[in-house]
């Protein structure tokens, strides 16, 4: 069972991780943080978040691989995923969609408030 108010942030850049956590903290979400793909998958399994903010380039297991693994599992296939990337790469975007990503955002192009709006919309708030 997913926890409706819990968001898992998988991002290796500490300053980006902290900024996301602060912004979502203001919105009364429960935040779980992971700094690489392996930790991300483990925490997704253990904590059953409602949504995952997933960076593409991650140490250990990269974001796309995390997404593919997630979609194959019983516990992970229904978790909503927003992929974050530093690049506006259309090929990558197609790959994300193929792997089952719900949404794709470019970090430099999206403000925290827009991101919060997107998350709320995804969670039906």
């Amino acid at each position, binding site marked *: 069972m997913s926890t409706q108010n819990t968001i898992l942030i998988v991002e290796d850049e500490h*300053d980006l991780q902290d900024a996301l956590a602060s*912004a979502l903290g*203001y919105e009364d979400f429960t935040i779980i943080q992971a*700094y690489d793909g392996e930790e991300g998958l483990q925490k997704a399994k253990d904590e059953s978040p409602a949504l995952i903010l997933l960076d593409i*380039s991650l*140490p250990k297991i990269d974001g796309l691989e995390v997404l593919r693994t997630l979609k194959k599992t019983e516990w992970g296939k229904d978790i909503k995923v927003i992929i974050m990337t*530093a690049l506006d790469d259309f090929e990558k975007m197609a790959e994300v969609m193929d792997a089952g990503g719900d949404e794709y955002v470019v970090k430099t192009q999206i403000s925290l408030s827009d991101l919060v709006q997107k998350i709320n919309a995804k969670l039906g708030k």
Partner: protein
Amino acid sequence: MATIKTNIRAIVVAVSVFVTLTAIVIYFHDTYEISDRYHEYVVLGLTLFSVTLISALTYQSYRVFESARAMARGMTRNMLVESQDLFSELYRNSPVPYLVINERAEIDSMNIAAARFFHVELDALEGIDVFSFLSTSEDTQKNSLIPEYFKKDKPVNEVEVCIQRPDKIERWALLSLFPFRNAKGRRMGLLTLVDITQQKKIDKAKTEFVSLASHQLRTPISAMKWNVELLTSAHENQSEALQSSYIEKIERNLARMEMLINDFLNVSKLELGTLVPEYTQIDLASFLRSIQDEYIALATTKGVTIQIVLDRAPEDIMSDTQLLHMVVSNLVGNAVKYSSKNGEVRVVAEVVNREIHIRITDTGIGIPDEEQEMLFTKLFRASNAKKQSIEGTGLGLYVVREAVRVLGGDVRFESVVGQGTTFVVMLPV
């Protein structure tokens, strides 16, 4: 053999001329009677003498004519052999890989350059379908068009292909294929491969560099944007401590961007080769102290001490400030960055054999043995540095080596994983 034949033929011709003329003389002798016997012998004698002379001349002329003809025939043959030799020598020794294939695209022969390209003996691939070497991992659509063209007897001009050699190594080449008919009228193909693997590698490195540069520059931009947004958004009960933590992050990322841009600019300056060192007198003590100051904040947070030892150093050295700064600042920065908590960084300058040596020693994570060879390669980062998510561009040591080169010096290092690393910069005095 040829001369004996020519001689016999000449003798036969001469004898027939002699016999014919003699017969004519005898005929006329019988027809016109000469009364005076003395005159008769004189005329007959002279006539026979003339006949013999004409025959001898005929013999000689025939021989000259025949040998001239033989010589002309020989020369033509020689010229043919020569031009054939020339073409096969060109084919054999051309620096461009050439292959001749039959109508089923099987390799008929290849030249030395082609054997070198495929890394095989000259006849090792005879009879093998040349198109089976087209790599399927890259751009299969384009590769499959080439056999189609050959079937339709159409030439192929400089198509970029990836070839997988028998030893499984991939090489890039520009492939051209010209169909032709051989002496027996069979359809053949002359295939050339111009090796562009090196250019491809450079292109790839450039693309990777641009993508890495943009990726690395974008991360601090996002961090700054988001922290500014957090700072300016009208969230209630934002404590002063929280606000200053946002400001601190903005400053940190600004510094990070500055560092990145400096690295990128230094690389491009060094690679353009336009950097001509401007030698000035540098006060070594204050130069090294200014570098110590650059990293004192980071060192303090990690509990790392930076020691400068100048006991055996000259007061001043002649060098280029900008280049020397690139070198020493990068090395001291690395030493602090890769030091474990409460470690020690020592910077020792001394004169050794008419050279100035600057030795930077740390007690850091060290460089794995198997990766040491790659250390100065552009964009290379040691696996243990990446694993511990220590920030870096993979450009610092590349900049160090290039800058040291411009200064006419050398840089070496010794390292043990888990114990630390010592870099020695050796510069001419």
